């Protein structure tokens, strides 16, 4: 597994072609909104979260990661029936943590990405449920079978999605 500490070796900051981040985010939101209408199982995969994790890990900049997470989260809130800020806060935290880890560890191995995505999914869910309970007084469960399946499905999805996004990087 290719997880190396930053102080052991220089960690490359990946850059992308213009419009790739914006295009990917819009496409992810679009698919998240319309794909479940046609494909029921697509509901399990949180594509905006995967995009947040991928760009946060690649850019390795906590500020950029949290802002990207916030933007994606707020947009997701806007397109769903949840109060604006619920997904925003969750993805802001995930973006910050992912980019902070990306700044310290070189995560290029597919299994490492898969494992991290699984963990970030549960972090995202935990924050989401915490805020729902605290601010909205919604009795959301922290862990249920559906969430577990969704986390595994999202983690497995990275095996196909992240190599695809890797192709959109600028050559170093």
């Amino acid at each position, binding site marked *: 597994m290719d997880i190396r500490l930053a102080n052991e070796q220089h960690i490359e900051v990946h850059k992308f072609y213009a419009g790739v981040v914006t295009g990917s985010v*819009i496409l992810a*939101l*679009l*698919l998240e*909104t*319309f794909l479940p*209408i*046609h494909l029921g199982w697509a509901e399990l995969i949180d594509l905006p979260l995967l995009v947040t994790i991928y760009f946060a890990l690649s850019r390795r900049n*906590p*500020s950029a990661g*949290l*802002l990207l997470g*916030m933007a994606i989260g*707020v*947009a997701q*809130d*806007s*397109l769903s029936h949840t*109060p*604006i*800020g*619920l997904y*925003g*806060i969750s993805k*802001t*935290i995930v973006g*910050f943590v992912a980019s*902070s880890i990306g700044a310290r560890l070189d995560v290029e191995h597919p299994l490492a990405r898969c494992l991290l995505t699984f963990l970030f999914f549960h972090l995202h869910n935990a924050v989401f449920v915490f*805020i729902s309970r605290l*601010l*909205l007084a919604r009795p959301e469960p922290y862990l249920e079978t559906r969430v577990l399946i969704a986390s595994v499905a999202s983690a497995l999805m990275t095996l196909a999605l992240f190599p695809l996004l890797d192709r959109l990087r600028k050559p170093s």
Partner: protein
Amino acid sequence: MNPGRSQHRSLILLAAALAIQVLLLASQIKRDQDVRLIRVWAVEIVAPLGRSATWIMDGIRGGWTSYVALRRMGQENQELRATLDRLKLRNAELEGRAAEADRLAELLSFRQIHAEAPMLAARVIGSSPSASGRIAFLDRGSRDGVGLNMGVITPEGVVGKVLAVYPATSQVLLLSDKESGVGALLARSRTQGPVRGTGDPLLGMEYVSKEVKVSPGEAILTSGQDRIFPKDLPVGTVLEVKSDPRSPFQQIVVRPAAHLDQLEEVLVLLTRHEFAPGGAADIRAASAPASTPAARPPAAPAAAAPRPAAPPPAARPSAVPAAVAPADEAPADEAAVKDQP
């Protein structure tokens, strides 16, 4: 940039981002109002794309569904064609069996009517290997009582005579063979004359004087002079009458009564026993259930009311053809007593 400072800045930014969103959430909860502006922007950006995506998805799905349906229909079409082919084969087989049952019923009926005349039912198992010869092989031979020169008939009429006999099979010279012939007479005038094969499907009646009035459609029956066939069996019908100025006789073209080119089951006359009076009429009556061509006129009226005896054969030039058994050739009366089913 100093990593510690950068990290510090990131933490401040995180705290600010979270604070803003918490406040935004709190304000929405407290005022119970939505932040409509953000939602409108988001929806305005995403909705047109979503409509396009849905349109494309519907198109792809419709195309795929049509393709799958078309393939399924193609497969179903192939299966139906295969079923149709099987059913056609089955139908042809059943039609063949039904026709065979009809023919056998006809033979049985004929035999029951003429129970006094010993006959042996036989199946045609082969035909002449050469185009010129008109020969059929039967599945009955000497073991079954078949003998040389025995007459072979169907309920429709005369077929030919036994040319060669083997233990289990026998060879029949058909009436249409050039070497074949049968003693016959015109049903209406009772004028006698041999009917010979021509090698073609049609036969020819010879030595009928021009003074005798012969008309197409007239029935021709066996005369019994050849000592092979009993009297009054249908031989055929007059198809055409020609007159040659150089010859004192008429040329009569005869259509054979039996379907010589479609023989499947026949009866071998084991003796030259005369059929009961009105034999020809009985034959036609017996063959009534079968599909007798309408063009063939019934021979019954002429046979049912026979005219006075025809002129003696001696007065005519060679009334019995060479291929037909001569007078001194004994028919198989003694040997053929066996009447097998």
